[in-house]
């Protein structure tokens, strides 16, 4: 989920708060199909529909809001705020739709998961494997493999990277910035939606899901420096492993409660910014009070005194 955020930030310079909504929508589309129509959805339909929904939503938000603002040379803060407005609007429009649908279909929609047509477990080479887990892992792996292939090998992918690195130069070589941006938005929205779908395989979903996740997603991206996709991926690994492993460790040995989870990831975020500030990428000035350097200087001074 963090990778598309970095992707869209890199190419269009919009730090998108509405990202959480794409996640929610992606998680909800299979639910709406399965609960509303009362059918068991096959995984392929679910994947395709949630990808399409996220992509369409992201493209619409780019076309209607961000593109006119970028054309007017809005500052990055303005873009951030506009994405925030968009987020609030879509979220509550979605809430309203849900409450109407709930009345119409007489089903509970705010806290459910999709009915997906997968067996509880399958045997692979004599080993019992949880099919949902397998689906999630396969989906994630294939999405990242496809994304890497797309960005590295295809023409459109290379154009995306070119736009991200140097928009003016890329446009001089005949790349249409508008089309490429649209494609990037579609991809990032779609992948975010898929992330939401993977989430809904394991957990119950409510309209707040995307919002609860968005801060962690931001943390992943910031640890990755908002620059490159592989570092973002590493950031996601760090965050998810701390949230799941470190908290259990702390719980067992220090009696920290399990719901401290989000606190930990923010702590990591702040520590990252303190120790190795990702200056430049966010457009900041590299002010000179680097904490590690301070500590080093302090230690050196103590040695000198002794």
């Amino acid at each position, binding site marked *: 989920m963090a990778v598309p955020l970095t992707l869209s930030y890199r190419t269009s310079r919009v730090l998108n708060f509405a990202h959480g909504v794409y996640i929610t929508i992606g998680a909800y589309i299979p639910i709406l199909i399965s609960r509303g129509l009362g059918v068991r959805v096959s995984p392929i339909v679910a994947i395709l529909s949630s990808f399409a929904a996220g992509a369409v939503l992201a493209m619409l938000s780019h076309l209607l809001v961000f593109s006119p603002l970028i054309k007017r040379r809005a500052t990055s803060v303005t873009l951030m705020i506009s994405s925030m407005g*968009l987020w609030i609007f879509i979220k*509550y429009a979605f*809430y*309203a739709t849900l409450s109407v649908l709930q009345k119409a279909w007489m089903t509970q929609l705010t806290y459910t998961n999709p009915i997906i047509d997968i067996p509880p477990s399958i045997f692979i080479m004599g080993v019992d494997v949880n099919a949902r887990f397998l689906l999630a892992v396969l989906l994630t792996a294939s999405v990242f493999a496809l994304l890497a292939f797309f960005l590295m090998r295809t023409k459109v992918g290379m154009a995306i990277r070119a736009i991200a690195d140097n928009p003016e130069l890329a446009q001089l070589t005949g790349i249409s910035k508008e089309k490429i941006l649209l494609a990037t938005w579609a991809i990032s929205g779609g992948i975010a939606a898929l992330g939401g779908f993977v989430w809904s395989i394991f957990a119950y979903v409510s309209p707040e899901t995307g919002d609860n996740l968005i801060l962690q997603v931001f943390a992943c991206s910031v640890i990755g420096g908002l620059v490159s996709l592989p570092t973002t991926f590493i950031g996601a690994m760090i965050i998810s492993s701390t949230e799941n492993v470190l908290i259990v460790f702390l719980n067992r040995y220090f009696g920290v409660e399990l*719901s401290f989870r989000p*606190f930990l990831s923010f702590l990591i975020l702040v520590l990252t910014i303190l120790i190795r500030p*990702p200056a*430049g990428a*966010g457009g900041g*000035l590299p002010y000179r009070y680097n904490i590690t350097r301070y500590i080093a200087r302090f230690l050196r001074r103590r040695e000198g005194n002794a």
Partner: protein
Amino acid sequence: MLDILSFLSSWLPIFCIYAILALCLNMEVGYAGMANFGLVAFYGIGAFVAGYTSMTVFLSFYGYDYPIYSLEAIIAMGKIAEKTPWLNVSVFILSLALAFLISGLAGYLVSFPTLRVGPAFLGITILSFGEMFRVFMKHFQPTGGSYGLLGIPHPFAWVSDPLTKNTLFIVISLAILISVFVYFELLANSPYGRVLKSIREDEVASLCLGKHVPRIKAEILFVASGISGVAGALYAFYLGSVTPDMFVTAVTFEVWSMVILGGRGNNLGAILGASIFTLLSRATSILSFVFLDLLIDPNYIRWMITGVLIVVTLMYKPKGILEEGPVKTKAWKIFGENGRGQARVMAAILKAGKYLKSALYWLIGRETK
């Protein structure tokens, strides 16, 4: 008539609190150009500090040793809150001061990790700081964990008439609002305010001109967070209770929408935006009260309107309703665009003053040159 009065008494305190918050955010965003998405943290810190100090002082003054979040403490507070007027008022003042100091210090500390990075990172970090604060408070036992504090003594609990009590509170919060407004107006039109604007427009340039950009930003964070802490304290005293879940990020976004709609870099605009949005929220709450069984919750519609207003404002009137005016220095007043007439009037007044002075001297029989 009574209806209008009761409406005003329910709207004005909330309006004052949000207007103070909007003014603080305007100072940070409109003048210094810092995208603060975690205003709610400082607001919440102020509220909790106020609740904690007031309840601790009261309970220890009357010799109870219950933990302040316990049920016994709440019952005891109900008994003792009305007994000593001077204690109520002094605790109120003390809590406001402490809320200002502690929130300001928190803002100052937050500035250390965030000021080196650009607007995007600053926004995210402060945003996650706000969320961190909420999660932390939910598990922090001394302030009652997720249940929060109940039974914070109203500063005018000793006044028996509820209308007078409310009016007194409104007068106090209006006074604080006006003083904050005047202070920010003076600050914005001082040389310091011009430095802030230069930082907003171009950080590198103002750094090159010898302004200590990080320090100035940290100072502004201190002042603005401190005053939003005061707003939080007012809120705590107004409601009489604080829970961590009152301080979700949505509050920050509401304040942001006020500043955007009213006009960035214009203090009057921030107040205008606050009045518009608090009126909107009053209207929707009245709607949901009148029509109990609506298909769509009016709150959703209010938030949808908020979102649309933000986007539309940014797209079609990016400067907001009240646009940022020129800096009101003395020179601008006299020699500025519209200042020609004013200059003439000023000269006339000065001349009249001179004549008046000589007339006075003649009256008391002193010689003039």
